[in-house]
């Protein structure tokens, strides 16, 4: 059998003449990988559509002033029709416009909850992972374990009940109970890359811990963090809807998806549109983020 040997002559490479690696190519490659799975693109479209609706609410909604204290009993409790695509509720407000406005609250909660949780949980995980074996690491992981020992919604509900019910406090409650997952995730990533050669060489070269953590280890952990972030926006929105279902989220008359469902439950089955449409809206948003998260996971994974 012949032995194949590859001879690559590296002595004459002129580094300045190599094609530059630019960001545009990187993004194009990522996009190609992402779009291989059509379902992921659907997820992205859903998320973009929801964000678009939430941002440009004033221009799109058919009855933008129905979100406030608006009463018009002549139009109350109408079934879905050409003028009110989702019907009207008991005081005459258009359900479609209220659902659109509720998107804003939901997305706000999802994004900002994740924006709070990920830095805090992630940095704690980085520290715990890098200094693993020392006291601070055990302390952080133990505290995370304790927070994880409570069933998720209990802590969220309890913190919400102490504070006044509002959107911001609901977000705070969700952040308080959700950060340990990121700490665990990042801890796992950090401990597995900690003994890699490039980290050790950076240490030998005298790089500061800050540099190693944030510029060597963290970029390698971004893939699972990103995936989990996307999925968690959906989870945070779901938790927010649950909270507002029991009355601990945004207060009336500001519409919020969970509150709309809970208000409509008493009118089942006659005025089914009061509950069904907000519930479907919740489902669609969370579904979009879930599919998008799966797509991001596939995009960032290195399988052939």
């Amino acid at each position: 059998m012949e032995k194949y040997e590859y001879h690559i002559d590296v002595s004459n490479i002129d580094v300045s003449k190599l094609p530059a690696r630019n960001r545009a190519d990187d993004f194009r490659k990522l996009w190609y990988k992402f779009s291989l799975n059509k379902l992921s693109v659907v997820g992205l479209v859903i998320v973009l559509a929801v964000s678009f609706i939430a941002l440009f609410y004033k221009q799109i909604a058919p009855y933008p002033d129905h979100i406030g204290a608006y009463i018009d009993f002549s139009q109350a409790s109408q079934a879905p029709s050409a003028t009110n695509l989702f019907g009207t509720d008991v005081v005459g407000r258009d359900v479609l416009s209220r659902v659109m406005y509720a998107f804003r609250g939901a997305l706000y909660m999802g994004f900002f909850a994740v924006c709070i949780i990920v830095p805090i949980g992630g940095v704690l995980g980085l520290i715990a992972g890098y200094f693993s074996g020392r006291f601070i690491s055990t302390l952080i992981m133990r505290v995370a374990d304790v927070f994880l020992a409570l069933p998720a919604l209990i802590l969220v509900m309890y913190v919400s009940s102490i504070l006044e019910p509002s959107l911001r406090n609901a977000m705070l409650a969700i952040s308080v109970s959700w950060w340990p997952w990121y700490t665990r995730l990042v801890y796992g990533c950090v401990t597995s890359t900690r003994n890699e050669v490039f980290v050790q060489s950076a240490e030998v070269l005298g790089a500061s811990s800050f540099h190693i953590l944030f510029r060597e280890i963290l970029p390698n952990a971004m893939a699972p963090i990103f995936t989990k972030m996307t999925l968690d926006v959906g989870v945070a929105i779901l938790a927010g809807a649950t909270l507002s279902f029991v009355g601990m989220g945004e207060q009336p008359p500001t519409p919020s998806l969970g509150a709309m469902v809970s208000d409509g439950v008493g009118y089942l089955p006659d005025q089914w549109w009061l509950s069904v449409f907000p519930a479907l809206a919740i489902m669609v948003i969370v579904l979009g983020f879930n599919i998008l998260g799966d797509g991001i996971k596939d995009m960032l994974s290195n399988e052939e």
Partner: protein
Amino acid sequence: MNIDIKRIQKYAKTFMSYLMVFVGLSILVFIIVRVMPGDTARMALGPRVPEETVEALRQEMHLNEPYYVQYVYWIKDVLSGDLGISVISKRPVLDDIKTYLPATLELVVFSAIFMSVFGILLGVLATKYSGKWQDAFVRILSYLGIVAPNFLWAVIAILLFSYKFPILPISGRISPGMLPPPMVTRMYIVDYLLAGNPAGAWDAFKHIIMPATVLSFGGISQAARITRASMTGNLEKPYASAERAYGIPERKILFKYLLKPSLNSTISCLSLDIAALFGGAFLVETVFNFPGLSRYALQAMLNKDVFAVSAIIIFEGAIFVLFNFFTDVLLGVLDPRVRYSRRIQQS
């Protein structure tokens, strides 16, 4: 099964670490219940009580002493069963828990059975018909289960089964007009059967089947998803190919030989879900008007019932920790790889 010292030592060590988590949990609960919300005694008694009574309660609850002393008193009380008096029902919280716990327990047991059986079954089905419509159906179902909130399924179930096809009742544990059975375990179905009243048991069953099914949806989806993923991963393993080469029918391979190794991650996930059922049942209990512990907890939180809330949180935390511990042990029993991995590492 040999009982060797090493395994018992390992269990003891796991138990100790869970105990530490529980202690940490109690500290956390103490902090968020006592330290944070402000004037505990005033909140416990309500706004209209005169100041002397509040001061007397403060003395009794040792609220004027440093926090660690309060913590010790509180732990002593909890461990001896004195969980305080609920502001709402004016009964000892322990009695309240004893009244409402069996209802939630029944619900959780049924949901757990549904979740395990149907989740694993659906996962195996999806593997067997992988690529065909059954697989797509199961995948869509599992997406929906994860994505849709509990109360959505509750609402749909009520619409379908109580209004469109009126076969199932929608509230309470037994129909009005039926007498509750003699209280042995306080779980209505069991008690009816024990008292020899099958009609009563059937009625209680009809009341519980919708909440239990709705509650189990999220767990079914996750279990199905994970089972399917790990089973399709195991389909190509060398031992499966060897069994096919021997001529063992595919069905037998799936159910007899592939099932146990694939259940590893499913069991972890299922146990997490089942433990979370205790807390997550409050939505379903509210919608179906099922008098259970979670609904009681929700009312307590909304009414700022300090004692009840702290008791319930630590109670559910204890259940969670216990459950995790048993799952670890169970995993060790079921999967020899978990058991022997340390031994292999040591040798």
